[in-house]
Each structure stands twice: as C-alpha cells, then as structure tokens.
C-alpha cells in the first residue's frame, strides 16, 4: 500500500467505518418494528417486509403526486411521506391484526403461515396497483450527493439521513415502551396477559396498537429505504430473513439486544465485504449467526428467568 498517503488511508477508513454504521442503521430500522411484533408479542410476521414495501410505495406515490401537482414542495415532501408511510403501514397493520393475527395468538407457527399468505396477497396487490417494474421516487436535492468534511472524504447524505432517522425512531420506541404508561401496559400484557386483563388493561386494544406500531415503523423503514434502493413488488421478501436474524440473534424480547445484534451483524458484514467477495461475506456472516445461535439459542441478550 506504499502508493497511498496516510491521509488517504485515513479517509478510506473513515468512509468504511461510516459504511458499517450506515448498514447498522439500516438493519436496526428494519428490525425495530419486528422486535416489537415478534419480541414483545411473539407474532412471527412474515409479511413484515411487505409492510416496509407499503412505506416505500407510499413515498413513491407522494413523490409522483408532488411532482405533478405541487412541484414547489418537492424539497419538503419527503418528510411528509415518512409520516404518511408510518400511518398507512400502521393502519394496514391494525386491520391485519383485527382480521387475522388476533385469532392466532396461541398458535405462533400458524401466524407464520397466515402472514406468509398475507405477504403473497400484498405482493400481488403492489403488482396490480403499481406494476411489476421497480420504482424509485424522485428524491429532494438535499438528500442527494455527499458531505465532504475534507478533500478526500465523501460521506453519503442519504446514509446520514437514515442514521438520524434511525436514532429518532429508536429513541421514540424506547420512550414509548419504557417511559410511557402505554408502554408499561404493553409490557405488562406481553408478560402476563390474563393478569393484565384482570387489572383492567384492555389487552385486545393493546395488542392491536402494538401490532400497528410495529407495522408503522416498518413503513418508516420502507420510506427511508427509497433513498438507498428501488422498490418492487417482491422487495419485501429480500429483507425478511435478515430482519429476523437481527431480532433472533439479539434475543427476541430485548430491545438492547436488537441494537447490539444489528451493530455486530453490520460490522461483521461490512468488514468482511471489504476483504472477501460479497457472496461469501454473506455466507460467513449468516453461518456465524446460526452457529452462535445453536450454542446460545436465547440470543445475545436474554435474562435467565425462573421457569
């Protein structure tokens, strides 16, 4: 590496570090919603990726709408689109819980199958509404390009945006679950449903809103993803396995675990990718996860409880 100056190598190191952090924020944002749904409620939502696609398509729809009718608002539409993605995906999640999930709380493996069916229907709906072609919204200029702190360092703006968004959403989830009275009720319900019902918590309502919240966060993740990649009818299924791995590896019921697991998976993957080919990096990362999970099935962070 004699032909490089130290400052160049330093810049690469900085940018590579950011690539890892960027992947971390992406994984975390994907996994947060599922951590709530799977971790707190125990529902295996195979349609989680499709709820992300709902967010992405909402953003695309907003982009086209703004471009056609209110082109002056183009710089700002994206923020509204994120909010709308949350609402639309959350609403759909609410309906799905009402129509489907609530009948299956006692049969976790069956929720897996039913939500797979749901994901097929959602995929076909995307195809019927938006067409088979992959779409991507027109991004506002402030999300494009890179930030250059020095001559040789380029930090992608979209990566920084996703990172910030992830931070906000994570803090929001923490606040909701651990500081608000609603969060207390959610945690109470997930720990002891019957008792919570007995002390006057409307557990059905809690379930429905929790599920909707998880789906809503998936929607935000989908919206954020449009800055990085395109959206197609089957986009959701690309992410579902990674998302589950993050949640399971972290220890299903632990939000801290989810964060730690997203961080370690992202760093492992991005460092490996730098040194070996992309396919093998993926194989090694997943293989390591599976082997670790075989030795520590409860995941990274799970407290030992009295059975």
């Amino acid at each position, binding site marked *: 590496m004699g032909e490089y100056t130290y400052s160049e190598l330093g810049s690469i190191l900085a940018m590579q570090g950011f690539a890892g952090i960027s992947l971390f924020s992406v994984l975390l944002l994907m996994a947060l919603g599922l951590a709530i749904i799977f971790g707190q409620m125990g529902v295996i939502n195979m349609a989680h990726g499709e709820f992300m696609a709902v967010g992405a398509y909402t953003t695309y729809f907003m982009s086209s709408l703004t471009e056609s009718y209110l082109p002056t608002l183009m710089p700002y539409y994206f923020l509204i689109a994120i909010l709308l993605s949350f609402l639309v995906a959350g609403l759909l999640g609410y309906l799905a819980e009402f129509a489907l999930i609530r009948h299956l709380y006692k049969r976790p493996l069956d929720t897996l199958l039913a939500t*797979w069916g749901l*994901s097929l229907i959602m995929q*076909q709906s995307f195809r*019927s509404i938006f067409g088979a072609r992959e779409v991507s919204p027109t991004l506002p200029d402030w999300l494009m390009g890179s930030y250059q702190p020095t001559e040789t360092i380029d930090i992608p703006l979209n990566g920084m945006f996703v990172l910030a968004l992830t931070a906000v959403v994570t803090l929001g989830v923490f606040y909701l679950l651990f500081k608000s009275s609603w969060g207390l009720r959610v945690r109470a319900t997930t720990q002891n449903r019957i008792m919570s019902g007995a002390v006057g918590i409307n557990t059905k309502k809690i379930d429905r809103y929790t599920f909707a919240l998880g789906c809503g966060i998936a929607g935000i993740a989908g919206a954020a993803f449009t800055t990085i990649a395109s959206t197609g009818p089957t986009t959701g299924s690309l992410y579902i396995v990674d998302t589950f791995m993050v949640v*399971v590896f972290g220890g299903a019921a632990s939000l801290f675990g989810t964060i730690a697991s997203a961080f370690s998976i992202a760093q492992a993957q991005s460092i490996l990718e730098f040194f070996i*080919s992309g396919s093998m990096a993926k194989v090694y990362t997943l293989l390591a996860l599976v082997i670790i999970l075989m030795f520590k099935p409860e995941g990274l962070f799970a407290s030992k409880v009295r059975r």
Partner: protein
Amino acid sequence: MSFVYEKLMGGKSGLTGFIILATLILVIFPTFLDLFRLNLVGKYLTYAFAAVSLVLLWGYGGTLSLGQGIFFGLGGYGMAMFLKLEASSPENTAIQSTPGIPDFMDWNQITSLPWFWEPFNSFTFTILAILILPAAFAYLVGAAMFKRRVGGVYFAIITQVIAVILTVLIVGQQGFTGGINGITDLRTLHGWDITSNNAKYIFYFVNCFLLLGVIVLSRFILTSKFGRLLLAMRDKEDRVRFSGYDVSNFKIFIFCIAALISAIGGAMFTLQVGFMSPSFVGIVPSIEMVIFCAIGGRMSLIGAVYGTLLINFGKTTFSESFPELWLFLMGGLFISVVMFFPNGLAGIWDDYGHYLTDRLKQLKDKFTTVVLNREPKQLAEDAG
C-alpha cells in the same frame, strides 16, 4: 397379515384411502393423461415427498422446518452430479479447454474435477449419498438444536436461514455447482436416454412406488409407539421427558427421516425433469412445501399428496389464464386453511365427508330397495 393391515395401512379407512390414491396415480393418471401431463404429475409427486415428510415432522412432531428445500435440493443435486459426470465424458466435451469435466466448470476456469465430485462417478455411491448425506446433515443440525431445546419458531427461522446460506453458496460457487443455472443438460443414466418416452413412463412408476412406499413407512412409524410419543411430545413435551424419554433423540430421528424422504423426492425430481437448480433449495420452495402439506392436511399422509397435486394443478392451469388471480387465491387459500381448516383437505373430509358417503350410502340403499327388491316382482310381472 393383521400387522400389515393395522400397522402399515392404518386399518380400514387407511387402507381405503391408500387404495384410492394408489389407483389414482398408478392406474387412472397413466390411462387418461398423455405423456406430457403425466410427466407433470410425476414432477408434482416428487414435491409430495417433501409434503409427506412435513406431515411427520410438523403435523405429528410439532416441529416446523422451513428448510425442507435443503434436503430436496441435496438429494436432487446428488443425482444431478452423477448424471452430469456421465454427460461430461471426454468425447462429449471435446470442445472444452479441459475435456471430461462438466461444462460449467470449464467456463469457470476450473481445470480438474473437484475432489467432492469424484465419488459421484459411482452410481452406488450416488444412491448412498442421496440416502445418507441429507440425513447426516439433518442429524448435525438437529442434534445441535434439539439437544439445546431449540424448537418451534426458532427452529423454523434457523432452518430458513440455513436454506438461504445454501442457496447463496450454490449460486456464489458456480464453478463447483453450476451457479444459478443449476446443473443442466442431463441426458443419460448408464447410457440409457432419460428423456425418452420409455424412461419417462418408468420413472413415473418408480416415483409412484417410492412415494407409496414412503407412505407405508410413515404409517408404520406413526402407528408405532414412536408415533404416539410424537403426538405426546407435541402437546406435552415436559411430561414425555419426565416419563423417562430423551425427547431430543426422537426429534432428531424424525427430522432425519423427513430429510431422507425429501431427498428421495429431490433425486426423483432430477431424474424426471432433467436438471436441478438452486431455485429448489431456497425459502420460497421450502415454504411452498409447507403450503402443500397444510392444504392437504398436516395430520394426513395421503392428504399431503392430494394437497400437492391440487395446488400444482391449480398453479399450472390458473397461472396460464389468470396469473394475477392466482397469487391472491393462493394467499387467501393459505390464510383460510390456517384460520378455518387447520387440518386442511383431510380435515374437511373428516368433518363433512360423511355427508357425501351417507348420501352415497342412501343412494345405494335406495337403489337396493327400489331396484333389487323389486326385482323378483318385476321378474314375475315380466314373466306374467
């Protein structure tokens, strides 16, 4: 004799169901379908192996594997490797830079046959590999997981991840595996043209007999004490453990059996379709196998076969005319089976089938009373 009747056939209703299925696939299909359709049915029936294996593993054992595609794929690839080597004789591959190795290796600058391909020159080894390797792999995975009491959801997700790993590996290591194209252009088995009409008929029947054999084997397992223990474990695992059974051994065993059955299906697939590709290993095929099983009835061996046939027939015919409707239908079917008919077709038959049989019986009775009883009188009248 009573052993065969009770244990292998499952008593009267079991025997009837078995005979009807055997008649359907051995007599009715070959008589009424042309070779093209029959070959399709044969392909579907290879998936039925995986569906039947899921009845054992999931329906009775309560352990859902989202990775049956792994074993289907291993079986299929084993057979494909043997056939590919036969198709890659130095004479057939003379135009390559390295004749005598499979074409895709040559394209990937591989100059000699990798060591793990070597033994697949032997047909005996190949058959043994198909029977043993997937089961051995299942043993490794199963021992690691079940000994540590990983089950239910975690098992499902981990098997799914293993399926993903294997797919990425096969696609990524294309010099050794043929990559995303898979192993194609398989033509002969010991010099015998596997694409000829004759071969197709023979493979179809071999496939059917193997499938029926697998059903009989599964019946034997399920009607033994082992089968009752599986059910007992599914519902009250701790009780079984505290009755002195090493629960994990039972789960590992049934997982290995399920892997073996799926692998046989995979090998038969390769023989009938003439190639193998990673698109049979990953998440989607694995979940589809679960769908076949769930639609047919997760507690019914024979139901799983019908489920497989129905879904695949539906897919072929529907996707020709209404491709859009098909996914909606599939998704809807899946949701409704899970929510309203957890025992699938077999469950519906158990719940409502008696209306049909009763009606048939009534008709028969009516026929007997009306026609047969009147017969003497009629005869008398005719005579008079």
